[in-house]
């Protein structure tokens, strides 16, 4: 199923911006490697968010200027970061105590597939690939709320929001909200509920790009992008 060319999909930056609007002031947040990392740039002014990275750091900031990178100061994606005032360093067991113990408010992760019951698959792309899980299973099991940030369909047009994940699960029933380039979709009582859709896209057209039923709770709003 292809999309009417008049419909503008959100860019990665716009998707990150939209997700950032839903981060509450005062949150402790872990952003997954890749697109979720962009989210930090778009948190509304005045909201204070503290970022956690699996490799033992709470309270880090943006990449330092070129030439000031410290190879011993990196995030989970092994990219250089900076220490903000009030940061704390700790070892890996303490870092995952924060995750597993439910101390983080929010994690935003990428996905291969999200199922309508909240199942997430984001670590093993088929049998042939070398499996690599990192901290994803810990994050989805332990963090209070898990958002997914992903394109609505794969590069070859397959839906990523599905009835049931065909890829190996990262966690069962863990996702509460999905931000795509076409819509914002909540997972409620094992159903997808559409909250927002991009300008000009009908719910039926969105349904055609989705691998599971889409429900409404009131008319979906407009998915805006700054």
């Amino acid at each position, binding site marked *: 199923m292809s999309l009417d060319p008049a419909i503008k999909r959100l860019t990665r930056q716009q998707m990150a911006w939209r997700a950032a609007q839903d981060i509450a002031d005062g949150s402790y947040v872990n952003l997954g490697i890749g697109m979720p990392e962009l989210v930090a740039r778009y948190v509304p002014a005045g909201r204070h968010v503290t970022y956690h990275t699996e490799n033992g750091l*709470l309270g880090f900031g943006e990449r330092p200027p070129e030439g000031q990178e410290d190879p011993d100061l990196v995030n989970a994606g092994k990219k250089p970061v900076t220490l903000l*005032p*009030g940061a704390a360093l700790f070892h890996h067991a303490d870092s995952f105590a*924060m995750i597993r*113990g439910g101390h983080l408010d929010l994690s935003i992760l990428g996905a291969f597939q999200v199922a309508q019951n909240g199942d997430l698959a984001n670590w093993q792309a088929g049998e042939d690939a070398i499996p690599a899980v990192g901290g994803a299973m810990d994050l989805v099991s332990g963090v209070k709320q898990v958002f997914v940030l992903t394109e609505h369909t794969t590069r070859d047009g397959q839906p990523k929001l599905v009835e049931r994940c065909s890829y190996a699960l990262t966690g069962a029933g863990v996702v509460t909200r999905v931000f795509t380039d076409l819509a914002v979709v909540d997972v409620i009582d094992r159903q997808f509920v559409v909250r927002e859709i991009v300008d000009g896209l009908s719910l039926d057209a969105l349904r055609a790009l989705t691998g599971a039923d889409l429900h409404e709770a009131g008319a979906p709003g407009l998915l805006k992008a700054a």
Partner: protein
Amino acid sequence: MKKPIFDPAGAVADIPDGASVMIGGFGGAGAPVELVHALLDQGARELTLVNNNAGNGGVGLAALIREGRVRKMICSFPRSSDSRAFQEAYLAGKIELELVPQGTLAERIRAGGAGIPAFFTRTSAGTPLAEGKEQREFDGQLYVMERWLKADFALVKAKRADPYGNLVYNKTARNFGPLMCMAAATAIVQVNEIVELGEIDPEIVVTPGIFVNRLVAVADPQQEERLVAQGAVYP
């Protein structure tokens, strides 16, 4: 994130009857006397308390017990040079005791904070304290399954905090403090001073601020052993 700063009374105001409260300290070292006395003033009853000991003399935890506020005590060592308040309540059948080996107590609290609902330990295997618990062999050794321990509140004393709640402690007053901050839904910490952001080196933070919910500054805190030695009684 900046943590709210209270006075002792304000910090403990919402602890309800029936709450579970972890209280830091090993004997007097690390005992948050001001917070405990504020809890006594506040009046909450039917409390379940977690501490290594069960109070000493007529102040702090012992005063809570003496005033009949404590339904159950979870601790490793309820005896001390003057644990009269606990003894009297216990022998009168007015307080329940859950006796836990000290290392198991520490690990159960850490497990509560770290999302580990149960773990196995050699400690207490083959003893009366293992009775009623699942025991299992691993690699030919017998181990006991222990459950995590969480609480509604923790009252902890540290030396210094920054506004985000990052903590450092003073010597062996550290003891259970970092663990209790992790395991309580609401961790209330009294510190000698709250310094500016950036004044605690990220390398030396003992309790990251994520585990701390409320701060109380008590510049010159009372030391429990000194009160006990003076024969002080609170209130």
